[in-house]
């Protein structure tokens, strides 16, 4: 029963990356909230202000990395939650595929939006 498992590396890396992204996200999410709710008031956000921030390459790349790590951390978390419920076999592979696709679309759309914001597109 407990003896035959699939390849071992995946679980290890997923666990490790979940933690590494967490460390980054603690800082990034905190920064994001402070900047857009306390430093800049959310109600006063306009495209101009957004563009001014996104024009700085440092801020732009931070936001893109933020998006990628958040997407991984969140979607991997959802996947873990579903495995907790005993998801396995074909069902599990289908769910993994759907979640990966959702993540890729999210990052793709997010990057597309970000490129609009810094005036590249």
């Amino acid at each position, binding site marked *: *029963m*407990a*003896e035959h*498992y*699939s390849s*071992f*590396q*995946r*679980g*290890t*890396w*997923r*666990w*490790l990356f979940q933690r590494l992204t967490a460390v980054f996200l603690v800082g990034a999410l905190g920064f994001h909230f402070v900047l857009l709710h306390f430093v800049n008031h959310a109600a006063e956000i306009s495209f101009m202000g957004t563009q001014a921030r996104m024009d700085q390459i440092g801020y732009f790349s931070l936001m893109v990395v933020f998006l990628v790590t958040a997407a991984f951390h969140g979607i991997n978390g959802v996947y873990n939650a579903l*495995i*907790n*419920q*005993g998801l*396995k076999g074909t069902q599990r592979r289908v769910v993994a595929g759907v979640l990966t696709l959702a993540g890729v679309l999210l990052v793709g759309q997010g990057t597309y939006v970000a490129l609009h914001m810094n005036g590249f597109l």
Partner: protein
Amino acid sequence: MSTQVTEQTETETEEQTEEQSPGERRREKKEQLQREREQEKSDLLDEAEETVELKIFRYDPEVPEKEEPRFDSFEVPFFEGMTVLDALIYARDTYDSSLTFRHSCRQAVCGSDALFINGKQRLGCKTQMVDLEWPIRIEPLPHQEVVKDLVVDMEHFYEQMHAVEPYFDPDELPDGEREEQRQTPENREKVKLSTRCIWCGACMSSCNVAAGDNQYLGPAAINKAYRFAMDEREGTDRKEDRLRIIEQEHGVWRCQTQFSCTEVCPKDIPLTEHIQELKREAVKSNLKFW
């Protein structure tokens, strides 16, 4: 005719009483003792200053009246120092001999009487009645199938325990045939707590993840793996093998640090801590291959 027969029987009975065999004498004595004990028990119930109500889970697929699970109430006398197991034994011996539960050593060593007492996994023999809220609710361990009354099927738990190869298996044996395999005091200290496991299954039953994912090794098995993986006498090759077992998809990674196992362990083994350490060991050994 009839008178004769009666006479005959009477004579026979008389003879038997006179020439009572040792076995019969013993049986009689036993019966008398039994009667006395029963009398004593009802006296106990009267004498005891307090009585406790036990609500015990009953189920038996082989008895029609017990096919539908239910709770039975038993009134037992309370005495200082009484454990839940004492109360169960009293209820079984006094009221219902069909009340079924596992127990053996009565001193938290054999690990056979892990029960779900007042909503928590505890050892019946180690739990004092005074420490509980009354009435006391006793159920079989959750997340394991009930065979009868308080007895659960432990087969799956044992399978997971065996999956981690829970035996000492060093890479190299000492040269001398009768040479001891010595362990440093520091290393012994490291594995000390993990060796305390009595296979009672309380941790596995408390684990929410193990409940959902049947393949998850569970805290007890991982702790067992820890006990040997951390034993320096086994050598690095064996440790790698052991890490490979516990770092499978349904090994250590399924632990979500809910601390349920650590809280219920009757031997106070820091299970979560051991699982976490194995996670770090597994990551380290994977990084080494790069």
